[in-house]
C-alpha cells in the first residue's frame, strides 16, 4: 500500500500519498491504481462529503515513474493509450462529481504529480514549502500527457499554459499562486482545506466550464493570435527537431475546441504516439534513466562512504567563486584562496548575490549571512589545512598552475584530494606538480557552475580509485551529474566542442556564408552556431590553445584548417570575441549582436548548400566522439550521451551522440566515408 485513505467524522475523506519503495512519491502503476480506487470510492460513497489529497512525504509528487515510460512496448502504442484512458475515466468521474476535492501541495509537484493535482477543485500550497512546480516533460522528449495539456489552458489560460508546457518553466509556490495554478497558500493547510470543503458542499470543476473553454479555441478572437504566433515562437527555438513540441501544440490546438472527455482522448493519441517514437525513448533513456544512474554514482570505481565537511578553492575568479558558491549551497564549508584581496572581495559579493537570487526565487531558505559564515576568504594557503579536497581554478596557464599546485600540496594534509579545474591541460602532466599523484584528479566544472549540471572527472595516469570515488561523491553532494573520462588533450567535451568550432571556422575560410554556417549549427540542434561559440570562448584563447597543441603534438599534428581565419581575426584585426566587443560578431551597446560585415572577406563563389553545412557540423562531432571511444578515453554510452547533452548542449533531440551513431547504423560509416572523400580525412573514422 502506497497510500492511506481515511474518512473522518465530518465526512471528509483524507487520501495520504506515501510511496513505500521510493524516498519521494512517484506515480507508478500501483500508486495510480490505488488512487483511482479511492477516487471511485469518493464518487460512489454517499457518506463522503469531500476529499483532501495530500502527501505523507516532504514533497508532493515528483512525477510519473519514468522507468515505466522507458519500458514500453514500442509496437503497441494503443496499449499505453488504454492505460491513459483508464486514468482519465477515474479523474473525470471525480471532476464531474459535485463533491469538493482539495489537493494540498507541500513541495515539489512535477509532471504527473501536477496533473493529478489539477483534477482537484482547489489546490492549497503549504506556506514555506520549497521545491518546483511545473511540467519538465518537454525537455524529456514528451509533453504533459495525463491531462496536463488539456487542463492547464482551461485553468490558467493559454499564455501561462504555453509557458509552463513549452518552456518547462519551473515555478515556486508564490509564482504558482500568482498565475492561479495554486489557489491559496496556508500555514494550516488541513484546516483551510476542511473549511473550504464545508463551505462549498457542491462545486463544479472549472475544466468543465464550456463557456470559458470556448474562449480558448484557436478561432476565438482572444486566442487566435496566440495560436498564430505559438507555432513560430516554438519553432524559432526548436528548428523542427522536436516532434514532441509539435505534437503538444497540435494537442492544445485540437483540444481547446473540444469538451473535456474527447479532448483527453485526443491528448492520449498524440502522447502515446510521441512516447512510442524511438527518438523519444532515446531521450528518456539518456536524460532520465542514464542520468539518474550517473547521479547515483553507479559508475563509481569503488563503494565509498565519505562525508565532506570542508573543501578549498584556489583562485577567486569567476569560476572559483562559482565553485565555492555551489559547495556552500550544498552545506559545505569552503576556504577560498586568492593572492589578491580585492579579488576575494569581488568573490564575496558575487557569492552573496547568487544566494540572494536563489532566495528571491524560492530555491533556498538559507540567509546570506548564515551562508557566508561557512566561507573563509584568505590569501594564505594555511586556510586549506583542514580541507578534505582542494580544487584549483586559476588561470589556464601551465606555469601558473604549476606554482599554485605546488603551494597547495605544501599546505594540505597528506590524504587531502587535490584537483584541477583545467579544461584542456592533460591531467597526468599536471599531476607531476604535487606529491603522491594518486590523489590528484581533474574536476572540470562547466561555466556557469550554478546552472550547468555536468562535471567531467578526469583520470590522471596515477589517479587511484579512492580519489575518483571521492570526487564523484563530491559531485553528488553538489547535485551535479559526473562523468569519468580518461586523460587526453581536451578530454571529452572540450575536444568535441573544438571539432564543432573548427569545422565552422573552416567553412568560413572555404567561402561559405557566415549566416548559413550559424543557422546550420542551430538547425542541427546545437544551442548556438560555431562562430558565436568561438566568440564566447575568445578567439585569442582558441589561437593560444591551437599553438600550444601544435607544439605539443609535433609531427602528429594534423592541420585543422583554421589557422588563417584565427590569425586574420586575432593578429590582423585584433578581434578577440565578445570580451573585446568584436569577434566574428559585432556587439553593439544597444540591440542584438550582428555578424561582422568584413567577414565577406572570406566569401567565395561556391555552391552554398545548407544541408552540406549541417552535415559537416554534425558529423564532425560524431566522428570526434567515435575517435574518443576508439581511443578508450570514454566508452560508456550513457556517459557519452549524458555528458554531451549536459556539457555542451549537443543536439538533445538525438538522445546524445552515441545514441545517434547507433541509430544511424551502417549509414554512419557510409556518410563519414563520403564526407571524408569530399572534405578530408578528419571525417574518416580511425579504428
Amino acid at each position, binding site marked *: 500500500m502506497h497510500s492511506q485513505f481515511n474518512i473522518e467524522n465530518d465526512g471528509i475523506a483524507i487520501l495520504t500519498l506515501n510511496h513505500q519503495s521510493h524516498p519521494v512519491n512517484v506515480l507508478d502503476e500501483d500508486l495510480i491504481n490505488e488512487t483511482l480506487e479511492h477516487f471511485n470510492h469518493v464518487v460512489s460513497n454517499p457518506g463522503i462529503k469531500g476529499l483532501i489529497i495530500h502527501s505523507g512525504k516532504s514533497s508532493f509528487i515528483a512525477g510519473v515513474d519514468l522507468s515505466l515510460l522507458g519500458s514500453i512496448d514500442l509496437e503497441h502504442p494503443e496499449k499505453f493509450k488504454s492505460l491513459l484512458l483508464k486514468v482519465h475515466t477515474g479523474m473525470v468521474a471525480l471532476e464531474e462529481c459535485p463533491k469538493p476535492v482539495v489537493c494540498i501541495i507541500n513541495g515539489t509537484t512535477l509532471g504527473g504529480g501536477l496533473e493529478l493535482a489539477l483534477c482537484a477543485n482547489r489546490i492549497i500550497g503549504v506556506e514555506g514549502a520549497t521545491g518546483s512546480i511545473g511540467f519538465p516533460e518537454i525537455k524529456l522528449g514528451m509533453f504533459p500527457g495525463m491531462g496536463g495539456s488539456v487542463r492547464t489552458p482551461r485553468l490558467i489560460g493559454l499564455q501561462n499554459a504555453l509557458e509552463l508546457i513549452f518552456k518547462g518553466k519551473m515555478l515556486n509556490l508564490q509564482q504558482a499562486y500568482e498565475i492561479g495554478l495554486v489557489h491559496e497558500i496556508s500555514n494550516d493547510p488541513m484546516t483551510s482545506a476542511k473549511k473550504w470543503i464545508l463551505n462549498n458542499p457542491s462545486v463544479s470543476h472549472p475544466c468543465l466550464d464550456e463557456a470559458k473553454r470556448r474562449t480558448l479555441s484557436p478561432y476565438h478572437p482572444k486566442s*487566435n493570435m496566440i495560436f*498564430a504566433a505559438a507555432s513560430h515562437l516554438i519553432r*524559432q527555438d526548436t528548428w*523542427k527537431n522536436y516532434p514532441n513540441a*509539435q505534437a503538444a501544440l497540435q494537442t492544445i*490546438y485540437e483540444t481547446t475546441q473540444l469538451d473535456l472527455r474527447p479532448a483527453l482522448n485526443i491528448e492520449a493519441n498524440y502522447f502515446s504516439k510521441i512516447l512510442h517514437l524511438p527518438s523519444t525513448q532515446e531521450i528518456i533513456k539518456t536524460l532520465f534513466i542514464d542520468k539518474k544512474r550517473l547521479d547515483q554514482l553507479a559508475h563509481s570505481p569503488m563503494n565509498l562512504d565519505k562525508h565532506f565537511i570542508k573543501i578549498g578553492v584556489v583562485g577567486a575568479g569567476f569560476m572559483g567563486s562559482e565553485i565555492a558558491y555551489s559547495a556552500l549551497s550544498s552545506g559545505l564549508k569552503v576556504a577560498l584562496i586568492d593572492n589578491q584581496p580585492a579579488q576575494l572581495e569581488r568573490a564575496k559579493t558575487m557569492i552573496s548575490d547568487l544566494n540572494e537570487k536563489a532566495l528571491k526565487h524560492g530555491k533556498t531558505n538559507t540567509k546570506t549571512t548564515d551562508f557566508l559564515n561557512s566561507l573563509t576568504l584568505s590569501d594564505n594557503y594555511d586556510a586549506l589545512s583542514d580541507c578534505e579536497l582542494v580544487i584549483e581554478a586559476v588561470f589556464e596557464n601551465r606555469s601558473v598552475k604549476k606554482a599554485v599546485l605546488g603551494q597547495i600540496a605544501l599546505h594540505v594534509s597528506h590524504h587531502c584530494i587535490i584537483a584541477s579545474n583545467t579544461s584542456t591541460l592533460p591531467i597526468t602532466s599536471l599531476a607531476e606538480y604535487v606529491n603522491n599523484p594518486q590523489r590528484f584528479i581533474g574536476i572540470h566544472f562547466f561555466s556557469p557552475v550554478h546552472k550547468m549540471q555536468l562535471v567531467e572527472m578526469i583520470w590522471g595516469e596515477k589517479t587511484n580509485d579512492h580519489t575518483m570515488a571521492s570526487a564523484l561523491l563530491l559531485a553528488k553532494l553538489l547535485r551535479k551529474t559526473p562523468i569519468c573520462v580518461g586523460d587526453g588533450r581536451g578530454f571529452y567535451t572540450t575536444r568535441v566542442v573544438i571539432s564543432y568550432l573548427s569545422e565552422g571556422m573552416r567553412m568560413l575560410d572555404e567561402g561559405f556564408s557566415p*549566416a548559413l554556417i*550559424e543557422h546550420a549549427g542551430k538547425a542541427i540542434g546545437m544551442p548556438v552556431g560555431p562562430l558565436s561559440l568561438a566568440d564566447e570562448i575568445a578567439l585569442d584563447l582558441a589561437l593560444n590553445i591551437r599553438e600550444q597543441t601544435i607544439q605539443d603534438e609535433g609531427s602528429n599534428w594534423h592541420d585543422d584548417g583554421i589557422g588563417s581565419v584565427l590569425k586574420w581575426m586575432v593578429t590582423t584585426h585584433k578581434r578577440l570575441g565578445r570580451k573585446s566587443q568584436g569577434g566574428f560578431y559585432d556587439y553593439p551597446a544597444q540591440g542584438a549582436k*550582428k555578424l561582422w560585415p568584413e567577414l565577406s572577406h572570406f566569401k567565395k563563389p561556391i555552391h552554398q548548400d545548407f544541408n552540406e553545412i549541417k552535415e559537416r557540423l554534425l558529423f564532425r562531432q560524431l566522428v570526434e566522439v567515435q575517435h574518443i571511444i576508439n581511443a578508450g578515453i570514454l566508452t560508456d554510452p550513457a556517459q557519452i550521451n549524458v555528458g554531451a547533452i549536459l556539457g555542451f548542449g549537443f543536439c538533445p533531440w538525438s538522445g546524445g551522440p552515441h545514441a545517434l551513431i547507433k541509430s544511424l547504423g551502417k549509414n554512419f560509416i557510409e556518410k563519414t566515408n563520403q564526407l571524408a572523400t569530399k572534405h578530408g580525412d578528419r571525417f574518416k573514422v580511425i579504428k
Partner: protein
Amino acid sequence: MDCYIIDAIRTPRGRGKQGGSLHTTTSVDMLKQLLLYIKSRQPHVTSASDCIIGCVMPVGEQGANIAKAALLAAEYPYAVCGMQINRFCSSGLDAIALAASKIASGQSQLMLAGGVESMSRVPMLSDGGAIMVDPQITYSEQIVPQGISADLIASLNNYNINSLNQIALTSHQRAAQATQTGAFKHSIIPITNALGQVLLNHDENIRPDTTLDGLNQLKPSFKAIGQMGGFAQSCLQKYPELEELSYYHTAGNSSALADGAGLVFLASKQACQTLNLAPKARILGYQTAALDPTIMLTAPKDACQALLKRLNLSIDDIDVIELNEAFASVVLYFIEHMNVDPNRINIHGGAIAMGHPLGATGAIILGTAVDLLIERNQRYGLVSLCTAGGMSMAMVIENMERK
C-alpha cells in the same frame, strides 16, 4: 477563350476603417448598387445564369454566399444563381476566370462575376481558418503574416527603402493624376445612402501631396509582430542565408485597407451576336501558379510567365500591366524579374494609393486594364495578383475596341 467582357464597373474605394466613407454601407449594399447600375446599362444581365463573387472574409454579413444575397437584394430574377469563392487576394479575378470558363466551355452564355470586401465592417482574420493557426500547417510551413513575407522579399533581394518608397510615391502620383483627368469616371459608380445622397464617388485613400521624405519617415509596420510573434526567426529557417530579417514595409508602401466592390458582365461570342452586345475586351486566358507559402508573394512572375508562354506572347507584347500593389517589394520584384518597363505597370496607380479591398481588387484592376487599353487604344493587357498561401493568378485580355 470564347469569352468577352461586355462591361466592367466598380465602386469607389473607401478607406477600410471606421470613418471611411463606405463604412456605413453594408457589403451586400455595395454589391446591390453595382448590380442595379449594371442592369440599367446592360439590361441583359438579368438573363445571366450565374453570378460568381470573390470574397475573402465570407463571414458575418459577407458570409453564407453574399452573391445570392446581393442578387435577391437587387431584385434580380430568381433564375440568376449566385456563388461565392475565395482564393484570398485574387478572388475577384478568379471569380471572373471561373465565369469565363463556364462560358468558354459552352455551359453558359451570360455571366456576372466580380468581388466585394468591406474591410472596415468585416476585418481581416474574421474568418479564422486553419492555414493561419493549425500547427500541422503553420509549424511545418512557417505561415507568416503577409507583411513579414513582403519584408522577406525585400531582405533577400537587398532592396533599399528609397526604391520601395518610390513605388509608393509613383502609385499616389499616378492615381491622383488619373482621378483628376477622369480616367475612372466611366467605371466608378458612386455609392449612395438610403436617401440617395452620395457617400463616395472617388477613391478616397489617394494622397496627392505624398512625398518621398514623408514616406521615408514612416516606421516599419511589421517589426513588432515579427519579433514578438516569432515570425521573423521562423521564416529565416527557410531562408538561412539571411542573417536577419530587415523591416522595410510601412503603412506608406503597403496596400491600404479598403472597402469596395467590382463587377464584370461576360458573354459568349454567340450571345454578343444574338443580343447585339458590344464587347470591350476578350479574355485570352488565365493561369494560376504557387510556390513557397512563406515568401508567399513572388508567384505572379511564375503565373505570368506560364500564361504568356501558353498564349505565345512575350512580356514585350503586353501594353498594359496591372499588378496588384500588395506591397512595394512585390512590385519591385516583378519589375526586376520580368524585366519590364516600370511605365507599363499600374499606369493609373495601384492599391498602395487607392487601397486593396481583398476580394474585390481582382475585378477592379481587370476593369482598370480594360479602360486603359481602350483609352490608349492598345492591344494586350495583363492582370496579376499575389495571394496568401504562396499562390498567384494572372489573366491576359485583348482590347476589342482597338481601331
